[in-house]
């Protein structure tokens, strides 16, 4: 077990393509950090640099107190879970788990013991003699995890491990990964593009965009106070609505907008902060037409067209309100639910 420290980590491919543009990050011992971002943001590249599968162009990478920039993956004392599992198809599950130990010269009975323990933990004991192709997706996923945890490494690296599973299994495995990590307290770095997975798994989230860190924080910090418009749009589903201050003023909502911090020209509003009934707190009022009604069981998504605006806007309400497509809706937004941004810099204006 160890902390992981990234100092000014950069990755440049030939031809001036900057995949990772200087990342500073400290991951505490035992912490579960999730790297999240859209595809192409450099999150996988960053993880692979930590793993030693990509070279580091610039910067320092430390696992524990050791600089590991030029070490082979095997020498870094890390274990990795791959997106497509990368199980060895010609080996039984037992040998898949044992292979890393065998290469490291572990004794036979020690290997046996570790494999049994890991298999028991992941409930794959029954499959130890099978080949990977005889397993279902979820079972393969467990074997891939088992291969990582038999070695008891300093850190686990997960590269979108759940994206090949179906939705139901994904939720189940997500819970299991979380529980397992809690139990083992192994430092973990987890890459995903799924913001829900990121929110639920991570002790801390690192939101990446275009090779740079947009924001680092606990899931709730990031959800409650997104630091940039990118984070605001990326975390939370449906995404945050962005409305310009000019538009809101034109709609006669200037009263509650008076005390927005200096420089604010866009406000973000979470779909859950738009209500169909007036709240007690100071609020602003918007008129709209319901374009599409989406019932999702416990909640409903209302896609509305705001008056005098082409901006698509989503409202999330619990249950199923008695509305029909084409209805005119009056929307109430509490003042405290506004996230002030400056659209030129893309940054949140601190209030």
């Amino acid at each position, binding site marked *: 077990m160890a902390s992981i420290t990234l100092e000014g980590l950069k990755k440049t491919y030939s031809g001036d393509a900057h995949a990772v543009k200087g990342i500073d990050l400290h991951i505490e011992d035992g912490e579960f950090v999730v790297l999240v971002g859209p595809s192409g943001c450099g999150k996988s590249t960053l993880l692979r640099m930590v*793993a*030693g*599968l990509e070279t580091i162009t610039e910067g320092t990478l430390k696992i524990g107190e050791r600089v590991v920039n030029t070490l*082979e*993956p*095997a020498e870094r004392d*890390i*274990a*990795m879970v*791959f*997106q*497509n*599992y*990368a*199980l*060895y*198809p*010609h*080996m039984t599950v037992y040998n898949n788990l044992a*292979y*890393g130990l065998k*290469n*490291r010269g572990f004794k036979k009975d020690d290997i046996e013991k570790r494999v049994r323990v890991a298999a028991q933990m992941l409930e794959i004991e029954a499959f130890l003699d099978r*080949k*990977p*192709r005889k397993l279902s997706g979820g079972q393969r996923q467990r074997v891939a995890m088992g*291969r990582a945890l038999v070695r008891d490494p300093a850190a686990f690296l997960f590269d979108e491990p759940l994206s090949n599973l179906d939705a139901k299994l994904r939720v189940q495995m997500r819970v299991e990964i979380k529980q397992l990590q809690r139990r083992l307290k192994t430092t973990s770095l987890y890459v995903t593009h799924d913001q829900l997975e990121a929110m639920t798994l991570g002790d801390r989230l690192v939101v990446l965009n275009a090779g740079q860190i947009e924001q680092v924080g606990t899931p709730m910090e990031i959800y409650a106070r997104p630091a940039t418009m990118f984070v605001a749009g990326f975390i939370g589903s449906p995404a945050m609505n962005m409305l310009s201050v000019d538009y809101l003023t034109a709609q006669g909502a200037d009263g509650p907008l008076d005390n927005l911090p200096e420089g604010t020209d866009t406000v973000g509003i979470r779909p859950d902060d738009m209500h169909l009934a007036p709240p007690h707190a100071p609020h602003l009022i918007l008129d709209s037409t319901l374009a599409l009604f989406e019932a999702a069981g416990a909640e409903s998504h209302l896609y509305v067209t705001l008056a005098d605006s082409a901006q698509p806007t989503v409202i999330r309400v619990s249950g199923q309100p008695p509305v029909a497509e084409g209805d005119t809706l009056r929307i109430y937004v509490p003042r405290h639910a506004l996230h002030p941004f400056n659209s030129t810099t893309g940054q949140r204006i601190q209030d």
Partner: protein
Amino acid sequence: MVENRPWANGFAHTVLIIGVALVVFPVYIAIVASTQAPDELLRGTLPLLPGSHGIENYTQMWLSGVSSTNSPSAALMLWNSFVMAMAITVGKLFISLLSAFAIVYFRFRFRMFFFWLIFVTLMLPVEVRIIPTYQVVADLSMLNSFAGLSIPLIASATATFLFRQFFMTVPEEMLEAARVDGAGPMTFFKDILLPLSVTNIAALFVIMFIYGWNQYLWPLLITTDPDYTTIVMGIQRMTSEENPQWHLIMAAVVMAALPPVLVILFMQRLFVKGLTETEK
């Protein structure tokens, strides 16, 4: 296809039967001819039923050969052919696996150049380069030796190319997982890549063995010592005599045809097994 059209079925079977008959008939004739008495085959009409001299003919061919044509016993010739074919097959597989491994998994200077160099030699069959190769082998004093018979034929662009194509389909994560698991390049090659290639190796083994077994021109060129006569050469020599002893020749032909058949039968299990077990 699940269809019920009797006449189409009948037609298909007729075509298949004719096809099989065309292939099997010459083999049958060879077997029949190898069991006849010496003078039986010189009468002009070929008997269609087996004769009674089978054991005699095969024993003679196997033990002593046809001394008048400088053909040694079939046992020796088959052994020579077998050694040559095995050396060529194993050598080809070994070299092409390693060179494909190098080309796919290592980044070195002129990597693509070397790949294309190998690829271009695909267009040069043995016959084109046979005279210079002969010169080289002669200079290295490898005439009349198993080394001379096999080494010049060992390099194989085809096999290298096929293995390269196969290695490129092995997901990169497999290599990365192995690296994280502490496997060096050769460990990865031995533990992961070779077992995954079993199907391809088995298929190429068959092809290469038959290629080696059927070599004619090259052995003819570099061996003068009857001790190194291969079975294909030997058969040819026996037929170029003034009075070819067809009953013995046919016995040799049947014996020459057996090893490739055995290799196919044996390897077939491997590649069928490989085909059903490969999944990435």
